[in-house]
């Protein structure tokens, strides 16, 4: 009997490997514009790290890809998914920021210009390998063979015209210090990167400050967009992702500020009640723990003074 179950294991193991397929389904959201929507879960072996939104635009001169996903395997799958929709070649990759779920598919686009803000390339050079290692730990074998590939092109803000699509590029900072957003002025689709999260709690550890992020949202919302593609979470044609991201940031900022005024410790803050209105958002407690760990020290220092005897 035991021998039999061992046999089963041997039979099942390659089957499990063979099933490591992202099943990417590009969904057309505007003229020539496709979205590959990831889940709002955390990184896990069950999702291979596909928790992220990527997209592509088919222009007259070729395909523009926005973010390459969490792994080499994802990048390859994305490329196949694009080829299933169009015969046009991929001619340009735009990376919204340096986080591993957005850039580790780069290997599959090594023959294409990979553009990013200068700050993003610097962050990938400094932290890329550590971030990739962390993903290996969280999603395992899906990552096999994945390596950091640095961008090959520095993007400037302004309008980048590609095959009849004027892409307005904005360099913002709220999520990582170097965040690119792309507004396609032809279709009105705004690829907001991780400055917008929707129904998924915000990842804040690399934020230069929640106030910076809030100011970025003002600038973004004022753009003439028709459709919003958040970095994580569902597509929207109204301002709900802006409202939710702003509401959550404002709450988090006030929680940390008020906690520091009262002299609270991190463990008290981590256990703070999460307002019922955020009930539909996934991973709020998990992200609160991360936010408190990274952001609270700056808040608490403001409420303390030099007391050493000099």
């Amino acid at each position, binding site marked *: 009997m035991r021998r039999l179950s061992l046999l089963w294991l041997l039979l099942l193991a390659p089957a499990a490997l063979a099933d490591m397929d992202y099943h990417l389904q590009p969904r057309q959201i505007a003229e020539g514009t496709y979205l590959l929507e990831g889940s709002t879960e955390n990184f896990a072996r069950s999702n291979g790290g596909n928790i992220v939104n990527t997209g592509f635009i088919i222009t007259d001169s070729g395909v523009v890809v926005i973010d390459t996903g969490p792994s080499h395997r994802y990048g390859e799958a994305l490329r196949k998914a694009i080829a299933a929709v169009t015969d046009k070649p991929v001619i340009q990759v735009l990376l919204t920021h340096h986080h591993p779920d957005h850039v580790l598919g780069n290997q599959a686009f090594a023959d294409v210009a990979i553009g990013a803000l200068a700050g993003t390339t610097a962050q990938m050079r400094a932290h890329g390998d550590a971030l990739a290692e962390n993903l290996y730990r969280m999603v395992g074998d899906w990552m096999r063979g994945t390596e950091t590939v640095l961008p090959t092109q520095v993007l400037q803000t302004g309008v980048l015209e590609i095959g009849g699509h004027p892409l307005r590029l904005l360099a913002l900072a709220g999520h990582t210090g170097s965040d690119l957003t792309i507004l396609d002025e032809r279709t009105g689709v705004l690829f907001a990167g991780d400055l917008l999260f929707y129904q998924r709690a915000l990842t804040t550890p690399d934020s230069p400050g929640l106030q910076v992020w809030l100011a970025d949202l003002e600038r973004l919302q004022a753009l003439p967009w028709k459709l919003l593609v958040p970095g994580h979470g569902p597509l929207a044609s109204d301002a709900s992702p802006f409202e939710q991201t702003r509401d959550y940031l404002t709450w988090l900022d006030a929680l940390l500020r008020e906690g520091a005024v*009262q002299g609270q410790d991190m463990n008290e803050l981590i256990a703070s009640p999460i307002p019922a209105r955020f009930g539909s958002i996934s991973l709020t407690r998990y992200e609160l723990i991360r936010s408190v760990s*990274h952001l609270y020290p700056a808040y608490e220092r403001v409420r303390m003074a030099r007391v050493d*005897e000099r």
Partner: protein
Amino acid sequence: MNRCRVAAWLVLLVCFDAFAIDPGKDPVPSVMWSFFQQKFLNGQPYVFDDKILVRAPPFAEDARQVPIEIDARAYQGQVVRILAWAELNPLPQIVDFEPLDRVQPWLSIRIRIEQATPLRAAALTRDGVWHIGSTTIEAAGGGCTAPSVVRTQPGWEEHLGEVLGARFPRGDYSRLRVQVSHPMDNGMVSGIPEFYLDQAQLTDASGTLLARLQLFPAVSENPTLSLDIQGAGETRLSLRDISGNPFSAVIP
């Protein structure tokens, strides 16, 4: 007859003793408990006690700065000493804390952890029993062997021993919070010998000792510490590192 009575007493004593030291069930899985129990508690009687709270996040987001909180206020007025350690750390000991006068048996501090580990706080009450609070924490690891952040800042030596601090009213007591500039080198980073704060004392304006702490190199760099204290008035914190540098601060 006499011999009989002695024997009966002995049996009783043994039974009583066995009863008194029944520690209950260890609430966390641990391969190191008996080692630490002998090492730190010297074989003295102990109980696993869920009234001693050890709070930590479920996972270490930054393994170099993990906030832990130890709360033995269920035994307010009876606690003479609290020991804390992270069992699977290469340098497990965190703090040896004696709340003496007006200071509550409560403490929060940030520590380094090297891997997922049980965390323990042992509170010794006046009756000679150690009450063991426990929790566990997940971690990707590396907090103890990560290079110091302090040492990457130019001129850090000039800030050595600077103390940020404040007092926060919390109902009928107040919380003292301090952060001391110190690299807290634990000797595990190549080429950098041990250099950490190990002694701290809290006194009031008249010099009465309120609390005594011994710190160990599991404590994070730039140690961040909170203590709860009853009553108002100036409080002095005196610190010393293992190189003998004295530092002091007065929290109004």
